[in-house]
Structure formats: structure tokens, C-alpha cells
């Protein structure tokens, strides 16, 4: 017999002008994993915030463990056995794992915190739930995947039997994601009920028992995972059929656009991150760079776009030596850059959509005339790009920081691809982006290729590499360990190369 740990009926939340959640029902049983699937803006976060007491529902009722529950705030939700793992970790970097776990509910002996007891309870919890973490380690030294386990431990330490995971895989490598899914299965086996928010269908199918699909603030479907298919769920989520296989013709590669020879560069900690890299990208082809994150991808992209100094080696774009060129010089050669961290390197959050759309061209005519900005031209540019690239924004004057992840990324893609002629360097272009936007961004990359640009696509998602790339380059510890036509490559082979298991 299944026991209900959480039961929500008719939850409704209105914001001025928006019906964010429209009579949403949700059930969670003991030991069950329920996937909450939906695009950005579908109302998943609003729902979860009501469950967790951040928002007060306008209508609807909740039951926790069969008892009617009225949750007054996050502290109350925690007291009632709910735990939440936020997408942006809520961890204090310089403190130890144990300190982070007990923070706010510290065991004490006399005047001081009982550090021994804290370490002991973390150790017990990690053994009980199979979450391998060293309680004495300093959090900021840990890899992201392990930090996430610390977040889960925090919830478990507070006695959570309902765990809400908000887009937990958005920041993880494929390997770390697999480990997380394993951890979730283990937790469910001990009786914890899990609400798993994501828009990655593969993860939903891999780990959940049931799936609830949201669109436009309402539940549009709920089903047992066992009978669901990727296509069916995607269609429910987006509201129309989604093509998973990217439609593209055979590549017609032209002359070499990007020519990298013997590239060596150091990372921020002054370690050698790129070790004698040589590669080429021809016009009209997409070269996918595969590799576990942290194997030099970031440094490669930064050196190519002029953001990082090169120790030795040469980079040539369209026959011009750009080894020591500035980012603007490289941009002038028709290079578009979709950076890995869109918030930090791609956009100025506090600027409007229109201003963000001219960040790479504001100094040129017609956007600038005798040193003064031409606002009419900037607005025309914005109107056109917003329409062409389907950016969902209330106005071109809206602050870009208020847009959803997918729309932020579309702003960057619009800016970088609309002027590109020779080369596109795209790093994790679809990370944390909803399915509809992923599809669109993929189409744009293919169309850039078809118009004769060379595309260098760096991605941690092997699916993405395989569906887009014409040629695959594998990075391992800053070296190119594989370079092959995509048609000849298999996932297993590339996976082994990524792990450094074989030399190509």
C-alpha cells in the first residue's frame, strides 16, 4: 500500500496580470520519485515555492502525511519534513561540510557548538543514505557534484522525508548527473519522497516513477513513467510535436576558417590547461568538442575569442594571425561567441534587451554617430532581432536579467549569429535552456553552418554533439585525444576517449 506524504489540491497563485498556477494538483507518496516537467515559465517554480511556503497560495489545500497543512514559510516547511535543494547552491564556501549541514540547527555542548556531534551526524547520514562526503572537507574545495550531496545532506539532517530538487542536473556533468540519479534511487528506497524538477527528458525517464507535466501554469498531463515516451512527454511540455533529430543536410565543407597549431595556455590557477592543441574548422561544418568538463574546453574557447593569453602556438582565422589579437579584433573578422556562462560573460543583466543586442556593435555605424549613441537605430536592431529570433520579452526596454534562461540565450544567439560571417564559437549553448529553445538554437547553429560559417561547438552533452556535429574532437587533460568524422564515431568510443581510457 502506498502512503501519501504530500497531497496538493487546486493550488492557484495569481500575480498582477498573470495566472502563475491554475488549480494545480500534485501527489507524492512515500519512496516515490515524481518528475515535474515543464519549460521555463511553465509555473514549476511557483508551484514549488507554494509547497515550500515561500508564496502563499491564493486558493487550494495541502496535506502533509495525511494531515491538512498550512505552511507559513520555509522554516515551517522544514519543520514539517520538507527539504529543498536549490538550483543555485545555498552553501557557505569557506565552511566545512559538517558546519554547512548543521548551520541553523547546531548541536551544542555548553557555550560552544559540538563539532564532534556535528561530524558524527553527517557521517551517519552519509552512510545511511549512501552519500559519500567527507564531513571535514571545506565546501568550496569540493566538486559541484559533491557540493550537491552536501545540499541533500542538509535537508536530510533536518529530517526531511519530502525532498524537492530544483533543476539539480543543470550544473552537473553527465557523469555527475548519473551519480545523482543513483543517489535519488537510493533515497527513494529508504522511503524519502522526491519531487524532481527538470526539463531533461532523459533524466525523467531514467529515474522517476510518475511524471507531471506543466505548461502555462497548469498541469497538462500526469502519467506513470513506465508507459511514457520521450516524444510524448516533449509534445505535452511544449504543446506541439518536437523533432529530436536535428534536421540537417550533409555538410559541404569549404576552405579552413579556423586553424589552431600547437596551442598552449594556462588556466586561472596557472596550471597548463591546453597542452599542444592543434585543430581546424572548415567553413560549412560543425566541429563538436566533446570532453568531461574541466579538460581545457573553457580555456580553448577563451583563447580563440581573445579572452585568454596564449603561452605558445598560433591561431589563424580566415588566414589572419589572431594569436595575440584582442576580442574586438577577432569579432571584426566575423567571429561570433556564445559564451559558456551567459550571465557572467554574455549579458549585462541590468541593461535592456536592446542594449544587450548591440554589445558587440554599439561602437559602429549606425548605432553610434560621432561618438553618440543612435537610439532609433538601436531600437530598430532590437525589434528586428527579437522578431527574427523569437525572443519572448515584454518590451525591448525590459532588463535582460528578468528574462528566462532560454530567452537570455536567444538574445545572445541573436546578437552573435546575426552578424557572423566566418566562425561561431559556441560553448554549452543549450545548458539550462528549455526544449523549445534548444531546438531553436540548434536550428540556428545549423543554418549558420549552411550559410558558410565554421562552427566550433563545445558541449558537455554527448547527445548534442552527436546530433549536430559533422566532425568530433575529443579533449582530455588539455590534449586532443580524438578527431574523427561524426558519421564514423560511436558514443561508446567517444565516451572512452573522454575518460582518457584509450588513445585514438
Amino acid at each position, binding site marked *: 500500500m502506498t502512503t501519501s506524504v504530500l497531497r496538493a489540491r487546486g493550488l492557484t497563485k495569481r500575480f498582477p496580470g498573470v495566472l502563475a498556477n491554475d488549480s494545480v494538483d500534485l501527489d507524492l507518496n512515500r519512496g516515490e520519485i515524481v518528475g515535474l516537467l515543464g519549460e521555463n515559465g511553465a509555473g514549476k517554480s511557483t508551484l514549488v515555492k507554494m509547497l515550500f511556503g515561500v508564496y502563499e497560495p491564493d486558493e487550494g489545500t495541502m496535506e502533509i502525511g495525511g494531515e491538512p497543512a498550512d505552511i507559513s514559510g520555509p*522554516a515551517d516547511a522544514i519543520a514539517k519534513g520538507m527539504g529543498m535543494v536549490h538550483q543555485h547552491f*545555498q552553501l557557505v*564556501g569557506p565552511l566545512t561540510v559538517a*558546519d554547512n549541514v548543521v*548551520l541553523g*540547527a547546531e548541536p551544542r555542548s555548553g557555550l560552544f*557548538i559540538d563539532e564532534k556531534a556535528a561530524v558524527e551526524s553527517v557521517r551517519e547520514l552519509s552512510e545511511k543514505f549512501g552519500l559519500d562526503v567527507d564531513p571535514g572537507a571545506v565546501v568550496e574545495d569540493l566538486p559541484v557534484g559533491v557540493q550537491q550531496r552536501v545540499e541533500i545532506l542538509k535537508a536530510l539532517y533536518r529530517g526531511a522525508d519530502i525532498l524537492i530538487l530544483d533543476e539539480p542536473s543543470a550544473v552537473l556533468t553527465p557523469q555527475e548527473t548519473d551519480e545523482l540519479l543513483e543517489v535519488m534511487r537510493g533515497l527513494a528506497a529508504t522511503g524519502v519522497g522526491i519531487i524532481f524538477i527538470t526539463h531533461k527528458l532523459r533524466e525523467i525517464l531514467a529515474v522517476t516513477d510518475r511524471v507531471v507535466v506543466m505548461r502555462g501554469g497548469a498541469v497538462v498531463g500526469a502519467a506513470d513513467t513506465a508507459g511514457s515516451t520521450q516524444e510524448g512527454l516533449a509534445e505535452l511540455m511544449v504543446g506541439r510535436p518536437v523533432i529530436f533529430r536535428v534536421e540537417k543536410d550533409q555538410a559541404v565543407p569549404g576552405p579552413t576558417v579556423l586553424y589552431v597549431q600547437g596551442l598552449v595556455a594556462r588556466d586561472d590557477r596557472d596550471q597548463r590547461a591546453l597542452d599542444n592543441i592543434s585543430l581546424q574548422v572548415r567553413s560549412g561544418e560543425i566541429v563538436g568538442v566533446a570532453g568531461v568538463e574541466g579538460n581545457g574546453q573553457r580555456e580553448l574557447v577563451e583563447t580563440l575569442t581573445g579572452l585568454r593569453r596564449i603561452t605558445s602556438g598560433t591561431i589563424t582565422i580566415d588566414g589572419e594571425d589572431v594569436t595575440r589579437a584582442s576580442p574586438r579584433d577577432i569579432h571584426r573578422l566575423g567571429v561570433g561567441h556564445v559564451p559558456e556562462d551567459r550571465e557572467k560573460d554574455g549579458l549585462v543583466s541590468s541593461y535592456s534587451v536592446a542594449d544587450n543586442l548591440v554589445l558587440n556593435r554599439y561602437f559602429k555605424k549606425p548605432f553610434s554617430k560621432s561618438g553618440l549613441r543612435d537610439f532609433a537605430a538601436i531600437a530598430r536592431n532590437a525589434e528586428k532581432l527579437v522578431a527574427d529570433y523569437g525572443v519572448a520579452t515584454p518590451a525591448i526596454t525590459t532588463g535582460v536579467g528578468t528574462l528566462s534562461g532560454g530567452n537570455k540565450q536567444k538574445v545572445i544567439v541573436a546578437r552573435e549569429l546575426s552578424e557572423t560571417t566566418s566562425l561561431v564559437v559556441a560553448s554549452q549553448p543549450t545548458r539550462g535552456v528549455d526544449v523549445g529553445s534548444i531546438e531553436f538554437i540548434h536550428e540556428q547553429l545549423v543554418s549558420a553552418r549552411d550559410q558558410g560559417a565554421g562552427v566550433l561547438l563545445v558541449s558537455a552533452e554527448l547527445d548534442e554533439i552527436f546530433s549536430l556535429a559533422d566532425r568530433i574532437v575529443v579533449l582530455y587533460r588539455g590534449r586532443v585525444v580524438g578527431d574523427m568524422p561524426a558519421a564514423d564515431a560511436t558514443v561508446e568510443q567517444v565516451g572512452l576517449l573522454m575518460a582518457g581510457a584509450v588513445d585514438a
Partner: protein
Amino acid sequence: MASPTNTKRLIPWFAAALVLAAIVAAWSWKSGDTEAVLGRTVRAAAPLILGGLCGLIGERSGIVNIGIEGQMLISAFAGFMASSYTAGMGTLASLVIGILAGMIAAALTGTFMGWCAISLKMDQIIAGTVVNIFAAGFTSYAFIQGRTQPTYPQWSVPVLADLPIVGKVFSQGPLTYVAFVVVIIVQFALFRSRWGLRTRAVGEHPSAADTVGIDVLRLRYVNMTIAGSLAGIAGMLLLQSASVFNRGMTNGIGFIALAVMLFGRYRPFGVLLGGLVLGFFNGLQAQLQFRQAFDIPPQFFGMIPFVFTIAVLAFAGVSARPPAAAGVPYEKE
């Protein structure tokens, strides 16, 4: 062969041994002067330590406080006025009232800066500047020339005060001893107590603290107020030395305290060490001026602590890692 970490651990002991050797050498050369310098070192260190702790407690919880100078001045003024008007109640009562008045005045000033930074989300540098300017202006304006207050007693620790070399270290005003007790309490409180853990969490990642039910804003208010009371004792220490209020009597000590905090890398025991080092330079320059040594104009000796402060800010400031949320107002989601 010692491993690098072991060698690193030996550095403080090595330094301590050097300092000890230097003291003994100086004493055998000029015993009286050496004893005086050591006594002054401790006396001058006390307000720097408390001022540094004031800055540390605020910044550890996320609020940058550059108003320590003003807080000390306000404290000294309030304390002097309170003691002066209650002089008739007897020396002890008058001094205690003065100390409490100084602490409360500086604590309230801390609360005010907290209000600016926490609730008004004002730029914290400006809030501190406001306090400094107000303190300098108001105390100069409201000060009444010619008033007096009872003098602080000197407490000599039995036996220790009779020792050679370090004897004068153990003959100080009562508040000086308080400073050294407070720094030990803050060290343990910051790293071992619940308050300390929460303070550090709030200064590094306030929303993380918020999500586990810690009231970020309240803790910051509390810390600014506690820190203010420590700056209050620092101000009263100046009064303890001078026995009378003077316009602008803080003379930059509140700013040097910030350098002491940086030197100590936001750790109380580091502040203790930094305070003693700067206190030593202070004691040295005072003794050199007093002696009119080496036929050098005394102003050059007066520069020593300030030159050292600049050096600290240039070198230690680079390596000290401030709390991540220092200076950033906390806004709930």
C-alpha cells in the same frame, strides 16, 4: 628534511623567538627605555585591538564599517561628559557611568550604521563617512572647555608588575586588561559558538543562512551593535590615557584599527598580533620623541606607525580575503 607545511608552521615560533631575542638585547642595552616601550606597546595596542574587533565583527557578518574612528570619538565624548557631570558621585561610580555611556553611545552609532546599511541599503562606505564627519563636527561643537573628570586608576598585577623587562606591561589602566580579555572571547565565540558560525555564514552567503532559518538582517543589526560597544571601549581607552576629552583625540586610530583588522586577516588573534605590532611602533616612536634621540626631528618618529599602516594595507591587504558578502546589502528573493 621538514615538509613545507611543517616549515610554515614553525614561522610564528621563529618570529616569536626573534622578537624575544630583540627585546632582551634592547633591554641589556637600555633597560629603562625598553621597559617603557613595552609598557606603551600594550597600552597603545588595546584601542587598536578593540577597534579592529569592531570592524571584524561587522565585516564578518557582511557590513563594512569605516566609521570606527567616529564611533570611538563619540564614545570618548559621551563618556567624558557622563563622567564629568557625575564626578560628585565618587570616582568609581563616575568612571563606570562614563564607560557605560561611551559604550552605549558607540553601540547606538553602530545600530545607526546598521540601519543605513541593512534597512536603507545605503552604500556602507558613505554611511561610515557620515558617522566620521558627524562625530568630528558634533563633538568639537558640543565640547565644553575646562571640564574635568576623575582619573583612571592604574592596576598593577601583583608579582608580574615587579618583573624586570616586562614589569610595565602589567601596570595598566583597567580597560586595557578588558581589551585583552575581549579578544580571547571573540576568538572563541567566532570559531566555536553558534553565534560565530552564523555570523560567518551570513557574511559569506546570506541567502544560504536565510534558507536554513537564520534571520540575516537581525543578526547583522545585533553584530553592528555589539561591535559598536567594543569601539566604545576603544574610545574610552583613549580617555583612560588622556583623562580629558580633546577635539579629534582619536587622531586616526579608528582607521589604523582597520589596517590592524586586515593585518589580522579577519581573525581575532590576528587582530591581537596586529594590534601589538602597531602598538609597538607607537610605543617606539613615543619613546624616541620623548628622548629626542639621534638628533632627528621628532615628527619623523611620529610617522612610524602611519608608514607601517600603509605598508600593511599594501601587502597584507592584498592577501587577506574578505568575507564574500561584505559590503553587499541582503535582499530577500
